């Protein structure tokens, strides 16, 4: 068993609008001196510290937790899971 850090990024699915990201882009970033930014997407990230036998099982475990506990709503959001060594 080893310790892994698992990042779960929850964001709106492509094609679904993201008022928060758009507001940050239009009302903050583009209002400043930067003009090279073209898009900002907002997301929520959860960081799990988990003890599992390898990266693969850590990923599966976290995916199951998120699905079962409705940590995100699959109708609206998608999640991306990244696993790192602790």
């Amino acid at each position, binding site marked *: 068993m080893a310790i892994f850090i698992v990042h779960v990024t929850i964001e*709106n699915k492509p*094609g*679904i*609008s*993201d*008022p928060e990201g758009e*507001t940050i882009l*239009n009302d903050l970033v583009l209002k400043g001196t930067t003009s090279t930014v073209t898009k900002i997407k907002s997301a929520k990230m959860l960081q799990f510290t988990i003890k599992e036998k390898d990266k693969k099982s850590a990923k599966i475990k976290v995916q199951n937790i998120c699905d079962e506990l*409705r940590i995100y*709503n*699959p*109708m*609206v959001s998608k999640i991306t899971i990244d696993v790192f060594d602790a």
Partner: protein
Amino acid sequence: MSLESGELDDLTLKIGRKPTSTELQIVAAEWSEHCSYKSSKKHLKMLPMKGPLVISEKGYDSGVLDVGDGYVITAHIESHNHPSAVEPYGGAATGVGGVIRDILSAGTRPIAIFNGLRFGDIEKDLHARWLFKNAVKGIADYGNCLGIPTIGGEVEFDKCYSNYALVDVAAIGFGKKKNLIKNHAKTGDIVVLLGGATGRDGIGGSQFASDSLESENRSAVQIPDPFIEKLIIEAILEARTENLIHALKDLGGGGLSCAVSETADALSIGIEMDVDKVHTRELNMNPDEIMVSESQERMLIVTSNDKLKKLEGICKKYRITCSVIGHVTLDNMMHVKKGEKTCANLPTDVVANATLLDRPSKKPAYLENIENEKKLKPILDYTKMMMKFIASPNIASKIWVYGQYDHEVGIRTVVKPGKDASVLRLDNGKFLSAKIDGNPKHCYINPREGAIGCFEEACRNVVCTGAKPIGMLDHLQFGNPENPEIFWTFLESLKGITDFAKYFEIPCVGGKVSLYNETPSGQIKPTPIIGILGLIDKTPLSTQNISKGDCIVIVGQTKNEMGGSEYFEYIHKFIGGKCPTVNFLESKINMNSVLNVITKGLVKAAHDCSKGGLAVAVSELCMTYQIGCNISLEKVPNQKLDVDRILFSESHSRYLLVLEKKDLKKLETLLKKSKVEYNVIGVFGGDHIRFNKESKNIIDLSVDKSQKIWFNSLKELVLHG
């Protein structure tokens, strides 16, 4: 999405050729039950819609009532059931957004939001709890961001809504009569789309709402953006004041398809538009997608070329996008182009008016024996039972819900949520009282009497604030209308509402029908919701402290009507019995007499007896005002009933009045004169709520202890299970 097979033939026959793919999409959206009301429209005509205060204009999405001194109020009710059942936060929030734009489209400023929420059994069902929690949050976030107070509503839980949600939202607007938008258009006028960009979200929403909810695998989710909505409100109102708007329509179910075809049909014009001109959020959207997308926060405006510059200036100021998407023509056609290419060219009356249906109806078999009662287990300890009862989700205080809503923003709210009805201050010195009510448990047992009961209850609630009912909104929510038994319950409820409205001369100023409310486990109970608007000319009955020695009077008779009561269903787990019925004459006499004594300033507080019966109504008064009381049950006017029936029967037309002892004589004289059935049933004082029969104590609750439970149990249940 597609048309039903008969409808495709119908369309082909009407236009004399095979429809194009875009035409199919447009017509499928507009002919869906959600947009066309094809099952219900024929019957809705029976409702009385006219009255001395009603102002009706073509193309209004909301009802308009004249409240005097050059002011009007507008009101509308909508539901967002299907979207909320799959994505409660966004679904409930966008529901609020939609109904607010309906208020806006008459040219009035939205000043209040109401909501009626119904979910499965949250005590056992975790999914129902998740839906409830998130729908409340969605409404709160959206309303609070907009700065519009959410001032009332109702929450109910019933197993029939398992895996589903009924989210009803009503809104009230206020404005000057001279500022109302008189929808009109002439050839050469231009059509402008204003607000959020069009994306792929919510495609097929109206069709989705017209199908049964079989699985979650749908893409009709809409994302709320209250900040754009707020900018739209301000931009539209400014454009209205500057007289820049000829006609205005909100984009709701069916998106551009419905807004364009309905505007054209209502104004007897044609509209030619180009989908390439629509500002989109995503690349490569095809014409079909643009026409039926239900992206939120958009409005359609008809204006003239010379006013465009000013309108664009306002949009720029509020940083919202507007694009000229087309112009008005004479030919009564809805002509959709992509550049030079024609995608659709249809007569607007064909698009906007689906062939209405005459659905068969049949009395449901389950009603045959529903009024028979079974033998109930006797209650040994009513005090213990009462403690459980006031903690139950349907009876417990809803403060956890309305505590999340800003109900004071706008400083109009003079009577706040948690009372019978909320009251708003209007600019002409008058007050507006409003309430929405539903009761699916009664309606299941008797769709007609149940619906009338909801109507009367909503009236009672506004009467308790000292207001006279002036207008009604109805929202009829039923299961699948293709099932004759379901359709029968729809017709019965509608007939009941019509009869009551006619008898009391309360016009129906707006409404909505939502059908196909069913889940994998079956149809929902019939759930008509009635919203009542009441007007107070002078001062509303506002909160005064109840003190020791004050008397409590009940008006109205308690009858043996236990069917659909919380007591039967929650305590005895029994669905059946005879549901409460309203005697129209008795109802009118009681309502007028109570209004009379409130107007004369004789009472300190008035409260209606409804869910949970007399026992709950009295306890609510005691817990709200934190004072005990002694009630003598033998003094309650009744039909020689057993103790539990006097306590828990939900008979209508009953009011509790609280007054100082010195005013009792005056009150009795007035009540006697109007031949109302009433009696003094107890006095306030002490710190216990006691119900006695003759000299025997039946219930004895500590005010403090019960108040804590009543206030906190719903929150505890939602947050900690």
